């Protein structure tokens, strides 16, 4: 049976955890792509963009191949811990991270590239290390763009369907997030439930965007 409140809570939890992970790693990768010149930079950029252009089911399929019980990494995880992330809510987090990551990388890279490097050079002559400069100069100046990336990532994670279905399944009360519950309600012909869920998801996404826009405007 569909449990709308469970699905809403799970979706918010999954999207929140995924957004924290995506914000940290996405910004880090975005910074390297924006500021460092290294061989294979364009290839890294292309690979990071791939989950954005591939169907989420394809990304989910790759992740199954990596994390499944007989998967590339999953087999070791399973033989050492007896645990597999498949069909758990953690798998929904992994799916959301994979799908939202490119958005964060793209927006943070653009945000950091828009910061004139001369500010960083000025900070170096004032004795600040690279890391100090990153946190006290670059990131504060890129703040608005980063915030937009976080908003996009969160709402994208909230709406994740394809990769989640592949990796976490669609188990009511365990891994059924909002989009999956909506799909199931629509399939079962329960249109009023589907409509209710659709409105809640839309409102939640809208609310997040408005809140983050206000935060950005305050700066």
């Amino acid at each position, binding site marked *: 049976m569909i449990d709308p409140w469970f699905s809403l809570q799970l979706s918010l939890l999954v999207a929140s955890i995924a957004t924290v992970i995506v914000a940290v790693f996405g910004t880090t990768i975005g910074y390297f792509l924006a500021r460092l010149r290294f061989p294979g930079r364009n290839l890294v950029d292309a690979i990071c963009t791939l989950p954005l252009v591939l169907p989420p089911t394809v990304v989910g399929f790759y992740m199954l191949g990596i994390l499944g019980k007989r998967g590339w990494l999953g087999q070791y995880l399973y033989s050492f811990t007896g645990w597999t992330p498949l069909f758990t809510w953690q798998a929904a987090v992994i799916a959301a991270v994979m799908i939202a990551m490119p958005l964060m990388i793209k927006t943070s890279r653009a945000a950091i590239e828009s910061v004139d490097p*001369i500010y960083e050079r*000025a*900070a170096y*002559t004032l004795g600040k290390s690279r890391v100090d400069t990153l946190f006290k100069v670059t990131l504060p100046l890129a*703040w608005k763009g980063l915030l937009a990336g976080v908003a996009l990532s969160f709402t994208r994670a909230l709406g994740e369907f394809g990769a989640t279905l592949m990796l976490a399944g669609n188990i009511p009360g365990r891994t059924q997030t909002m989009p999956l519950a909506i799909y199931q309600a629509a399939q079962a012909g329960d249109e009023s439930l589907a409509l209710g869920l659709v409105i809640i998801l839309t409102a939640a996404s809208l609310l997040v965007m408005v809140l983050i826009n206000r935060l950005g405007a305050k700066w």
Partner: protein
Amino acid sequence: MVERTLKARINATVGSFSLAVELSVPNGLIVLFGPSGSGKSTLLDCIAGLRVPDSGEILLGDQVFYDSDRKVHLPPQKRRIGYVFQRPTLFPHLTVGDNIGFGLQSWSPARRKARLDELLDLMQLRDLADRYPANLSGGEGQRAAVARALAPEPQLLLLDEPFSALESQLRKSLGEKLRSLQRKLSLPMVLVTHSRAAARELADLVVYMQAGRIQTTSTPDQLIPD
């Protein structure tokens, strides 16, 4: 105050441009003068440690900043060189006070506050301490930039076209300010300009550069009028 002579022998290439200079500047205010594209800014970047030359050596007194033979390259953080850039570089997200205090974050709060007060008075910025850079005039911004560069007590101050955005009256007063600071703090300064008037008024020594080479080194009164 220790006599600190800056000695630099620098070979650097930037694209198709090549810089090859050798200079020795005693304590004082040295003006690097020449047309744009003559390599003045590149030279300052090398001295500050923001650009690694292809070869050569850079010394200040007995400190080795760069030596290609001995594979020494001290990063800008360790050189204690103040740098006032050509473009405005006050951090737009910080107030004037926080900008000036930016290089002092490892100092004790009491010492930092004292130093900040000293600089606000020195550069006549007392009333502007809480303003953001976007709300400063060109002259105020430039004074704040000089104050920020001076704050961590540098042993050398580099100024890249500090007057370029200023009208002549402000240029004159900032020039006089720098001149008197140089005397007062006995702080060696290297100032880049393409203004002959500024070179003549301020310099102890004028180094004329063209196409990446030093053409002449002279006293300001030897500089031919426009």
